[in-house]
């Protein structure tokens, strides 16, 4: 069992500001039922001040506590002040969260951001060139890029240098993408692949282009067999029980393989 602080306990036992606001000026959402946590945040805004906030959360004790304390933190504050609240501030107010639960505070921050974006009708930071990749430790894309330029070749090495990806791990796929964009991959010739070359290429694409995307949702995929241009794969993790797995296979996996290797590839679930 987790070690929760007294503040966390108080907030999951008696959460403040539970519910919804009719005619809310802004609603923000984060998470999903399939992932085991989801948050809906309702704001009433007058003269750029948050005059009321309510929440509904599907999630564990620390998810409820994070949402509850967030509403307390924002009521009475101006939008400029609210905008500056980070997940670290939420954790601090709670007196700490177990590292594995950092994502609960991130969800609070994400819902808040979503609400503010919806209120203003545009996304803050859209024009910003340096977006935050690791929400848990607020590590930016440029910091990760810099780490790779300084010699980090794997996600683990990037984590060691920047902490990015070492708490909840949800950004590992994004970190891999940055690594891939900095370190050029050897180009494989398109024409006349032998069956072995074809198999290796399919596997490489699955492992470097497809798997990292599925991992973001706690899913996974592995290559099982290849017969001609028919590729057989097995979905793992949350993907294996996902009702949308066929859609994932066809619209994402097959599309990606067609795009990067051969237009005649057909995907099958083994």
């Amino acid at each position: 069992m987790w070690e929760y602080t007294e503040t966390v306990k108080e907030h999951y036992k008696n959460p403040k500001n539970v519910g919804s606001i009719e005619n809310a000026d802004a609603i923000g959402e984060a998470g999903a039922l399939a992932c085991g946590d989801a948050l809906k945040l309702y704001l009433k805004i007058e003269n750029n001040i948050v005059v009321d906030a309510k929440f509904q959360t599907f999630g564990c004790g620390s998810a409820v506590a994070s949402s509850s304390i967030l509403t307390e933190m924002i009521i009475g504050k101006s939008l400029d002040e609210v905008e500056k609240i980070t997940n670290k501030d939420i954790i601090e107010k709670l007196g700490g969260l177990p590292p594995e639960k950092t994502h609960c505070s991130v969800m609070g921050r994400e819902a808040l951001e979503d609400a503010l974006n919806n209120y203003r009708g545009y996304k803050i930071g859209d024009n910003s060139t340096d977006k935050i990749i690791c929400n848990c430790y607020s590590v930016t894309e440029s910091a990760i890029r810099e780490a790779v330029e300084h010699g980090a070749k794997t996600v683990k090495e990037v984590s060691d240098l920047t902490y990015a990806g070492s708490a909840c791990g949800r950004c590992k796929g994004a970190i891999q993408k940055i690594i891939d964009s900095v370190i050029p991959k050897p180009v494989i010739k398109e024409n006349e692949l032998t069956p072995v070359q074809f198999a290796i290429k399919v596997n490489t694409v699955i492992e470097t282009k497809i798997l990292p995307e599925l991992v973001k949702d706690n899913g996974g995929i592995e290559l099982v067999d290849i017969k001609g241009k028919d590729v057989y794969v097995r979905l793992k993790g949350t993907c294996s029980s996902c009702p949308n797995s066929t859609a994932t296979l066809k619209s994402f996996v097959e599309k990606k393989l067609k795009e990067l290797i051969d237009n005649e590839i057909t995907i099958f679930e083994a």
Partner: protein
Amino acid sequence: MKDVIYLDNNATTKVDPEVFEEMVPYFTENYGNASSIYEMAHTAHDAIEEAREKVKNLFGAKKSKEILFTASGSESANMAIRGVLKNCENKHIITTKVEHPCVLNTFKELEQEGYRADYIGVDENGELNIEELKSKVTSNTALVAIMAANNETGAIYPYEEAAEIVKSINGNTVFFVDATQAAGKIKLDVQNTKVDLMGISGHKFHAPKGIGALYIKEGTKISPIITGGHQEKGLRAGTENTPYIVGLGKAAELAVQYLEFEETKVKELRDKLEQGILEKVKCAKLNSRTKKRVPNTTNIGFQYIEGELILLHLDEAGICASSGSACTSGSLEPSHVLRAMKTPFTSLHGSIRFSLSRFTTEEEIDYAINTIPVIIKKLAEISPFQKELAQMLK
């Protein structure tokens, strides 16, 4: 400590005071090493053999020399699987997707070591796919491991039938049954089955933690995984844990005596709890849906509410239960058992296991039936899925 209503007996049980009492003299009085030559050692040796006889009866085994004492259910499983494979040329092994980690993770390790493993699935009600098992057994199959009863749902699997089928396809395949969650809850009669090995753990039936046993059918080829002295006929080195073995023996004796009580009284209370919750809580769905089930277990999914949150609030109300879901166990993955059953996401993350014992009282169950709906109602109000929850009230 405040009064608790302990409904987590599949996790561990209270040591029966009668068991504890029998153990005590072997700590401070008859503490001799069972392998030594003097009188006090003989006392220890005799006590161990008496316990072996009682554990034999719990298994329904033919001879007491078929019983090996171990330190846990996990050790029993490791000993059975690895001890047998050491004597096998074949590299194919089969188990189920719903096994306890002590079997699943041992299989994963073996795959790393070069074995080929198949994992048999279950249907949406949790029934084992016997046809799939049939199709996987080949002349190369070294070992099949199937649990007798599932720790999360209480489902009883037809291991006797499975053993018959496996042996009829390949007589050399060794059949291991993890009976950790079955011992003391349903009758075991291993001598009249085709099962070669069967493991149990003492603390699941009112013996202390740190003691288990493995039934090894006479003639089964097996090698030790803990080497050293000659204890347990050379099959498990390490000085015999006399007090705990005595405790296991007494617990086994009591378990046999209480079997009927389990199947009547305990089952009655379990059914009362289950029906009480399902009637009063509209978003509750039963996950334990197999035709056969151990008498003490129920697993209920509370839709659109997260499991850890439920457990924390149950704890506040003095009720101990457990969930295989995401956040409790320290892993962020939901229960592999409920996922193998294709449990929908709506209740996958909010599934709670309640497991009773012979010490559970009717007052405790009444309290639970009255308290749980209040807690769930309160937590449902926090859920962002109000529309879906309202739909269920119609």
